[in-house]
């Protein structure tokens, strides 16, 4: 579940940053068209990989349940952090993505 959580959080952060308003709030300026596309694509890709990670670990039944659970949790966490600690929200996303391959190998 941890790997799926890390990937979901990273994915949601990417999707969030692909939006003008949130990108401006966190990074101070609107994203370029290219960045927007990269973030959107990357975000969805990460969410997809997290689903794959969840299902690989515990099969389709439990895996889907766990994936939805971490999906909702990571979204809540991000939306709660964004207005209060945007830098922390972003750092956590970077950390999550860095930790993911480590997590994947260890589990």
């Amino acid at each position: 579940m941890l790997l799926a959580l890390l990937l979901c959080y990273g994915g949601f952060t990417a999707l969030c940053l692909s939006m003008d308003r949130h990108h401006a709030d966190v990074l101070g300026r609107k994203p370029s068209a290219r960045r927007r596309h990269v973030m959107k694509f990357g975000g969805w890709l990460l969410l997809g990989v997290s689903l794959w990670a969840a299902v690989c670990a515990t099969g389709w039944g439990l895996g889907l349940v766990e994936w939805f659970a971490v999906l909702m949790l990571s979204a809540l966490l991000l939306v709660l952090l964004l207005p209060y600690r945007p830098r922390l929200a972003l750092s956590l996303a970077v950390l999550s993505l860095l930790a993911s391959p480590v997590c994947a190998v260890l589990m």
Partner: protein
Amino acid sequence: MKEGFRQAMAWLHTWTGLIFGWLLFAIFLTGTLAYFKAEITHWMQPEIPARTLSSEASLTLAQDYLQQHAAGASRWLIDLPNAREPGLTLRWQQAPAEPGKRGQFTKKTLDPQTGTDVQGRETMGGDFFYRFHFQLQMPYPWGRWLSTIAAMVMFVALISGIITHKKIFKDFFTFRPRKGQRSWLDGHNAVGVLVLPFHLMITYSSLVIFMSMVMPASILAAYKGNAEAFFDELFPESNRPTAAGQPGQLIPLAPLLERARAQWPEGQAGSLSVNNPGDANASVVLERDGAEGVVHDFGRAVTFNGVTGELLSTTPALPVPMAIAGAFYGLHMGNFAGPVLRWLYFICGLAGTAMIGTGLVIWLGKRQLKHAKSGVMPFELRLVEVLNIASMSGLMVAVVAFFWANRLLPVGMAERANWEVNSFFIVWGLSVLHALLRRGRAAWVEQLALAAGLFCAVPVLNALTTPYHLGVSLVQGDWAMAGFDLTCLGSGLFLGWAAWKMQRAGRATSVPRARVRPVPLEREAT
């Protein structure tokens, strides 16, 4: 209503949300607590040690006990201990129930290590919240009807809410705190949209769970009025043989566990029922442990002849529609969830509760603004305000009062389980009175502060009244006990923060400042 689809849905969402919001808040809060009902029960009966033993050993103890105390019963029911519920629960029925009716049972919980009666204070434990959330303390079957009706209204409110929320994707990550009504709406949308898969699942599954009761038309049409035939087909092992009237020696039950395991690839028995023990027509039905898969395998049972041990029947693989219904049931109950997933269920449940609560606050807040200048609230709004306070902060005081009653009522007191429940309702009733007598904001602050104080004091209360306080439970690794104390503390801190915010907001609005403009409310439907 002539104004367009979204407007109509906004109207529907607003009114269904209000009328059923108070009830749904209570259902969601108690249902969320029910995810930890085993842990709550453990805290409320701290005398019962949390020890597990092998299923075979427990079953042998159970059989010996029942042979001694319930030899002439028509039916024995044995719930084997599992990780979360370490007690060995036995029930027996003296006389068989009339067909289609629920029978009378005697219930005992045994210590699985010693086989003797467990000596724990009489309490409903976490089961109180579990049962309340779908029976609402009403006589059978009215409570279930009301809660299922509430579930259908919840479904309508959810879908109409989704339709109304025009910027559901654009505002997906939007939460703007410290902006008054705008923040409440953002919060409502956040806990609604971000946790939507859970909300939709929990709502629709609650409809499916009671669908035979509320939507029996299909049963009656397909089975030509013979509903019993439908249930017999669904639960074949519930066909119990009638007693032969002749004595027959009941075989030892423990070896049957292994034989049942042979039938189930990765499963094991969670409970057994013995029909006609001691009779020639005895049968033993082993049911699978529900905590294994997500899909609750209805009717998955193995039946043995009680005298010869011969395998009588196994239920065939689950057909797809039953598997889907079983999935709804299993997902709703969450029995399969391990500790981490169980906490996630809990968090999602709290999010649902918060979604309803914020909705109620917004409903009133929007309309209160219009009457803020006159200082007098029309009757309808005052009614909503009282109901909001009593159903939310009042309910939380009632919950903690239930826990306090458990520790304060004498252990040997007669009917103490009922009195714990009475305490819950008495305190809830008092909170209604309090909300009627006090002005809105004052009532909120006082009730939230009271709940906060009582919750924070739970670990202290525990330490003063039992030897199982945090110092002991953390050291021994009794996570259920420690977790309960710590969660109460955390809840108390949160409620204290809420009370403080409420009080601050009250002071801010009572001092009019020229700079402060009322925040214009965006009309979501336009």
